[in-house]
């Protein structure tokens, strides 16, 4: 995937008000892509769209998207001419909050996984029909292994990773690439104020890697890159040993 000034390629960003999505939008606009921002908070995406137009002189349009309004998903890509879509929405509940309220817990599962299943099928049909394109979606390093500290959130992301892995195989013969994005802890509103075990990565750094991997049609994007060796080791730890850790 590459871009020229005369006929800019267009990327859809779903859940465009999230911290990583905003950084991805900046990076794409900086590289000359036209954008379609979809999110629930219309005021917020209008502000972001204005910002991107002024900063980068690119075309930006907005549309309404609500992860939990499943009926609206089918029309998400109506009338759009896209080269790629990035799905970014999500929430994170602590294990304690999830355990305390099944309705909140289920809401997280629906936002983080059920709506991904729904939106990814819409995108799959759209790009399959075009015979080209890239579908990227945000999973997490937390989905690579169920860790005692964050397994409720991690499980929703594990589901997304498995889904994307299967979808990738299905769409590969159709010329469509599927990218599983696995960010490590990132300095976004979602993590602000949480007692992190280590430092969080700036969203700009995370976004740079994501855009690079979309353009290169890669399969898995650990971002920042250091998470690839770390998670490779963590995934290799046998369960009898892993259960004794406190990660």
């Amino acid at each position, binding site marked *: 995937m590459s871009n020229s000034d005369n006929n800019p390629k267009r990327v859809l960003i779903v*859940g465009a*008000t*999230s*911290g*990583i*999505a905003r950084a991805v939008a900046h990076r794409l606009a900086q590289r000359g892509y036209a954008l379609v921002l979809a*999110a*629930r*908070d219309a*005021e*917020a995406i209008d*502000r*972001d769209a*204005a*910002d991107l137009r*002024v*900063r*980068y002189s690119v075309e930006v349009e907005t549309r309404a998207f609500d992860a939990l309004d499943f009926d609206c998903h089918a029309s998400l890509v109506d009338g759009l001419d896209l080269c790629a879509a990035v799905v*970014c*929405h*999500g*929430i*994170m509940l602590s294990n304690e909050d999830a355990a305390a309220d099944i309705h909140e817990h289920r809401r997280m599962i629906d936002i983080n996984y059920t709506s991904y299943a729904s939106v990814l099928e819409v995108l799959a049909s759209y790009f399959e029909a075009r015979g080209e394109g890239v579908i990227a979606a*945000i999973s997490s390093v937390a989905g690579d292994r169920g860790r005692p500290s964050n397994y409720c959130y991690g499980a929703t992301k594990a589901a997304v990773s498995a889904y994307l892995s299967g979808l990738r195989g299905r769409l590969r013969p159709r010329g469509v690439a599927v990218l599983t994005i696995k960010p490590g802890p990132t300095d*976004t*509103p*979602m993590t*602000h*104020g*949480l007692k992190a075990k280590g430092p969080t990565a700036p969203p700009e750094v995370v976004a740079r890697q994501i855009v690079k991997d979309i353009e290169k049609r890669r399969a898995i994007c650990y971002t920042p890159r250091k998470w690839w060796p770390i998670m490779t080791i963590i995934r290799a730890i046998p369960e009898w040993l892993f259960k004794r850790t406190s990660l």
Partner: protein
Amino acid sequence: MTPTKPQPDTAPRADEQSLAGWGLEPRVDCAVYRPGSAAELRHLIEHADGPSTLISRGLGRSYGDPATNPDGVVLHTAMDRFLVFDDATGVVTAEAGVSFADLIDALLPRGWFPAVTPGTKFVTLGGAVAADVHGKNHHRDGSFNTCVHAFDLLTPTGQRLTCSRDENANVFWATLGGMGLTGFILTVTLQMLRVTSSRIDVETTRVGSLDAMLEHFANTDDDHRYSVSWIDCLARGAKLGRGVVMQGTHAEGNGGSDLAPAKRRAKSVPFHFPKQALNALSVKAFNAAYYARHGSSRHAEGFDPFFYPLDAVLHWNRVYGKRGFVQYQPVFPEADGAAGVRAVIEKLSAAKRSSFLAVLKRMGGQEVGPLGFPMAGLTLAVDMPRSSGLRGFLHELDAIVLDHGGRVYLAKDAEMTAETFAAMYPRLDAFKQVQRQLDPEGRMASTQARRLGIVGQR
């Protein structure tokens, strides 16, 4: 990832951080909030479990303690969107977290430069309003307020006010220079300056004494949009006040490729220098070398080295060591300016409080708010590393400044007493009156405002 809108029942989440100003001292443990929108900020103010008091913070370039507060700090860095830009007029509206670096990156390629810029581009528009910052063109164009058409303020009671010279004028003026105590600046609308090149035509002139420097200012300042001088604070006797005057004007260019900024790779000071690194001897050597190297010349240079020489070195504040430093900046009225500057330099020189950076410039007499710093006259800025006895020494300098009818810049201040402050800012009561009306419950506070008695103690 985020997006759930704040639910009315969820308490805003703070990050506990140890914060300081650019001078690294004092360091304060603060509850830091980072709202992404005015709605989230209002939620923070109004939530029953929210912080008792708050102060805004941008990129943390004020030197002392105006942007710290243990109860609550609102980081504006997630409210950094451009909202409207008119290429025909150069008027831009942006959220307060947008920095001068952002303005330049986005708008210089289209031929627009900030009409007034401070000496670092890592300052937000909100910070520029709150400190009513000035730049090298103050003698001619005045401070930042002269290019501000309007701004939106979220008052401490949650009301959104648009403020300009015509609308809510008393709030407009109290907020310009009001160090964030009137509320939260949400958006700023300002006028940019039309330029055709990213380069500056610079004229440097070496002068051997303070009198010669003032004479040079008087004869040539009106011919240059920008004028500032570096002075050697360690030179004494007849050489006192010797230095290099740097004057500049935007170069004329073709508008297209001439607007591209020269690429500069930022260097960084990776660690705090040991305290022995800077001493009277090393600074004296540096100053002498600097003076010897800069003859009188004319040349063109990029806007970065001209306006923002220290931005090329990230974390340059670490060269003063872990204990940090103070930047002391008084302004003296025209009539008594030379005597005031001389008295301060003599005292610095005698005390051997080393300083690389001493900057002298003429200021104009444009209108400022009740806590505005500039006045027609001379302003001096000197760096002093923190060492024992510094507070007492600064208080002695404060006495000299007061004695000559001057005042100290609140964006640099870290140690002034409430009494000195009240004497230097005779319009303090007018400020307090507006501030109390906007903030009847006392929700705004910073470490500085408490020290200076602008707001009550905790």
